[in-house]
């Protein structure tokens, strides 16, 4: 158990007063950038990087990592309160978090989210601690076909379990795939669906679409429903926080499953956003109350939050051990690493144990610090909902547009937000599910690239997806996730037909 000794050394580094102060500052800064949509963790971290040049690498990475944890927590806050995901990975939290907050239980929703997020993060760090040497080797086995299989699995886990009419799901999904293919294609280098507009060369930003679909779409709905969005008289009481914490063990099964899904997606290249969707989809399928998901079920908050943080934490491992960032923020941190003169790679664990284990130990501490800090803010944030719509509504609109602008400082994005706001409103009115579109936008382009690369490598043979046990298992599992629920449905219908033969 050599890792354990190294971890204890790490704690000696992480638990100094300076480093704890750095964590508190990092988490608070992260909360701020996380709460503001658009100004997400990647932007926040890259703003901080120049400040870290003169710092000791361990202190620097602790600052950046703490900011990342803070941003992940902050992102959930606006998802729950206003239906605006502050971070891409907190989109799935809106599905049940927002309805619960609208139902007057904002404190409960926030506490559930933060506690399960904290649990997810801790499980993630434990996975890193125990598996650091093994997981790096495992991640090396992922070539293009395996990447595609992982994305495909995430798709199938979420889509196969949808409750909406399949035709509408397909429309939403295909629209998302089309949107994700806008811009310059990595594999061919050609421009697609840009219609000659320079603004579209870089593609359509996922965050901009999400801010429009959710934030503006929701405002339009509220306005049409006659400004009833007012004075959700949520009691603001710190005791509610503790009551919710006590209720958490009831969802242990969801919690454990979601943490595992997250750890899997963090180590393989899936990433936190895909993990949260996948976990939500599985939770809905496995829950006896799957039908009422989306109306404010606690499991619907626990599942995506735990998976998101577990994946976000585990994603640090491939970054350190292989130099592959599995999230945008990790990519920025890796740039920092190189500037500090550290080379991510298999040798980092041997050559710089102080740095690696100091960071890992700081993840334990910083996440506990973050949970305490965010729980303390819950009553304050929950109180925001008492503000009447006439005041908060325009503020939300302003925050949405400012947030969309900060993504890449482009005025064109403001028009996109408006357009997608209308799309979101129409989807809502016509009962089209938004989630498949969002998922397709997150994973569509990556999945397409991986598929294209696999086809180049195999000279166009689909059998490459069953060419070794690893990729074959993932692909078969993915297909099973789509097909089995349909079979179950058919079987139960058949049984019903047997029971009442004159039924139809």
């Amino acid at each position: 158990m050599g890792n354990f000794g190294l971890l204890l050394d790490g704690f000696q580094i992480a638990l100094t007063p300076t480093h704890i102060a750095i964590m508190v500052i990092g988490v608070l800064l992260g909360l701020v950038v996380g709460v503001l949509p658009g100004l997400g963790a990647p932007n926040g971290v890259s703003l901080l990087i120049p400040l870290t040049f003169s710092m000791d690498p361990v202190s620097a990475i602790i600052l950046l990592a703490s900011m990342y944890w803070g941003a992940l927590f902050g992102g959930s806050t606006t998802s729950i309160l206003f239906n605006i995901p502050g971070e891409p990975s907190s989109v799935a939290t809106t599905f049940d978090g927002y309805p619960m907050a609208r139902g007057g239980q904002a404190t409960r929703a926030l506490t559930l989210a933060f506690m399960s997020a904290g649990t997810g993060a801790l499980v993630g760090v434990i996975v890193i601690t125990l598996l650091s040497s093994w997981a790096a080797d495992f991640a090396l086995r992922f070539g293009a076909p395996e990447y595609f299989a992982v994305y495909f699995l995430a798709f199938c886990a979420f889509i196969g379990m949808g409750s909406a009419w399949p035709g509408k799901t397909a429309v939403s999904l295909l629209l998302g795939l089309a949107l994700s293919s806008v811009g310059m294609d990595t594999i061919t280098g050609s421009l697609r669906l840009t219609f000659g507009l320079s603004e579209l060369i870089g593609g359509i930003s996922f965050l901009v679409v999400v801010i429009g679909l959710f934030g503006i779409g929701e405002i339009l709905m509220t306005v049409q429903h006659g400004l009833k969005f007012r004075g959700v008289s949520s009691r603001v009481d710190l005791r509610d926080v503790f009551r919710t914490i006590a209720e958490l063990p009831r969802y242990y099964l969801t919690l454990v499953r979601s943490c595992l899904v997250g750890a899997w997606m963090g180590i393989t290249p899936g990433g936190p956003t895909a993990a949260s969707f996948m976990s939500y989809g599985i939770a809905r399928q496995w829950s006896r109350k799957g039908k009422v998901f989306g109306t404010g079920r606690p499991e619907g908050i626990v599942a995506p939050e735990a998976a998101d943080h577990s994946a976000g934490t585990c994603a640090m491992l491939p970054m350190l051990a292989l130099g592959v960032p599995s999230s945008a923020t990790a990519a920025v941190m890796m740039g920092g690493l190189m500037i500090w003169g550290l080379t991510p790679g298999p040798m980092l664990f041997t050559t710089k144990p102080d740095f690696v284990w100091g960071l890992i130990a700081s993840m334990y501490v910083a996440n506990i610090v973050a949970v305490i800090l965010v729980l303390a803010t819950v009553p304050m944030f929950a109180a925001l909902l008492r503000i009447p719509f006439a005041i908060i509504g325009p503020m939300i609109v302003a925050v949405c547009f400012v947030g969309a602008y900060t993504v890449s400082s482009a005025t064109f994005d403001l028009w996109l937000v408006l357009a997608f706001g209308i799309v979101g409103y129409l989807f809502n009115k016509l009962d089209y599910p938004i989630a498949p579109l969002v998922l397709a936008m997150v994973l569509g382009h990556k999945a397409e690239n991986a598929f294209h690369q696999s086809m180049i490598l195999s000279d166009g043979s689909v059998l490459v997806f069953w060419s070794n046990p690893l990729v074959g298992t993932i692909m078969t599992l993915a297909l099973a996730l789509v097909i089995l629920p349909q079979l179950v449905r058919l079987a139960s219908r058949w049984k019903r037909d047997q029971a009442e033969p004159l039924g139809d």
Partner: protein
Amino acid sequence: MLRNTRITLAAAAALLSTVAAHAEWLPERPVEFIVASGAGGGTDNFARTIQSIVTKHNLMEQPIVVLNKGSGSGAEAFIYAKANAGDPHKLIFGTNNVYLLPHVAKLAYTTEDLAPVAALALDEFLIWVKADSEYKDAKSLIEAAKANPGQIPFGGSQSKDTDETLVALIEQETGADFKYVPFNGGGEVGVQLAGGHIAANVNNPNENLGQWQGAAIRPLCVFSPERMAKGEPIQGDQGWSDIPTCSEAGLPIESYQMPRTVWAPAGLPEEALAFYSDLLKKVSETPEWKDYLAKTSQTGRFLAGSEFEDFIAKSQDNALKVFKAEGWLVQ
């Protein structure tokens, strides 16, 4: 045109008469560093290192704001430069993509929309294979690709960019035929090689350093006129200077290097251009810059003015030959 020249001449004359007063142009607003890559990439580190050096040595009074505009292989940054023609408070950080991209993709800018300020470093390219690969040297890899045309997967970053250009150049010069597989970035290609999913790649030293340290992969040769600078041993007793150049290894390609370049929107005042190239010259003489070059295994080379323009012309001609033979040229 004639009118413009006359105005320029008049302006120049006016400037000459007051040369003492205007000798030094200074930025009046915060200066934007526009990075033609996403956060965390090689170009991003290049720009942020310069930012930190300028700030640390107080080389400029106005603050610096770094913005990433990396979409479309960097086209976003160059189109932004065009939209801000004549603005002396914006610098664009890129590689040779500034002048090569418009030849392979139909984009809303041309190289004339940017004014070259300086190049500060040359990044090297090497051929890498997996540590336990059957290919012991560059020659055997080439021979294998000749024996099995289109069968040996060669990974690279992006499509029709520096990596694919180099692989195409190797093919054209040697008659070998590889299966080129594009990935998103150098780090990803490095890991794909370490995992044995591709047979070789042409990563920059910095992109593969970690994997080489870990003895997962090894270099075959470097596309540089002479061997790289001596440094600490990286893997076993092997260091950068122990890698043969590709011409030593028998490949008829003497040099293939990627410049780290700085540009400004075209039409900015001459004095501003001079100010920035002077500023970057000072940056390139600091110990921190030397440190950055050593850490990223790049070759320091400061180019500005006509020297830089000659370099661009030559580099562009070489690349165009490859593009033409591959049929990548647009228009």
